[in-house]
């Protein structure tokens, strides 16, 4: 698992961040020259936690009903926005520009 500074070296990375189990932003790094602020990163952190939680419910239900294991525990969630993506795992995430995004490298760096 790499540090927030190392996450910033991922292709297209513009922010890396860490959040509490409730989704509150606890630490972050921001590349210069973009519109992101800690307040926005706090919202993004809540998006990550909310979706990991929803996906966990779905993985539990899916595995119970279908008998097909392999989704639980949820190891990561990625939101692909119009121009940017946020890749999250556990209590950390990274925001990438879509055209340069290497999702696999991001998951690897997040320790998935």
């Amino acid at each position, binding site marked *: 698992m790499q540090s927030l500074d190392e996450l910033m070296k991922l292709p297209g990375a513009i922010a890396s961040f860490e959040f509490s189990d409730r989704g509150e932003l606890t630490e972050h790094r921001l590349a210069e020259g973009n*519109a*992101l*602020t800690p*307040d*926005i990163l706090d*919202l*993004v952190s809540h*998006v990550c936690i*909310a*979706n990991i939680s*929803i*996906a966990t419910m*779905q*993985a539990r239900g*899916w595995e119970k*009903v*279908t008998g*097909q*294991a*392999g*989704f*639980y*525990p*949820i*190891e*990561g*969630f*990625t*939101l*692909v*926005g*119009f*121009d*940017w993506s*946020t890749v999250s*795992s556990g209590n950390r995430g990274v925001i990438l520009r*879509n055209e340069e*995004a*290497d*999702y*696999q490298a991001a*998951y690897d760096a997040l320790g*998935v």
Partner: protein
Amino acid sequence: MSIVAELAARPGVIAAGEYSYRGDRFQCKGELSEEHARMASIMCRATNLSAHMQTHFLALGMDPCPFNPASGWSVRGPHFTVCVMANVFCFLDNTATSLNEVMRLMHKHLGREPEDLI
């Protein structure tokens, strides 16, 4: 070849499918039963609705907001990953496929779908 067929033909793709935005129809190619494909459609549609609402909220704090509108999402488990872009979903075997290639293919074909369909 449709994007669903193209995805389903890729190595490591367990199944690929498409649901109607209204949630009343679906189709799927691959190793999912009809009932499981129906369930997958319901689940993917639910998360898609959430993702769109969430990027609307992000846009309240950023203008312009590069997250908004959402193009799609993916969720990763220990063995499988689900990728969704617009109204198309894809189940992947983590060990047998390239996540980046699938995401790139889906984004190229589906990443700019008009949001009013959601």
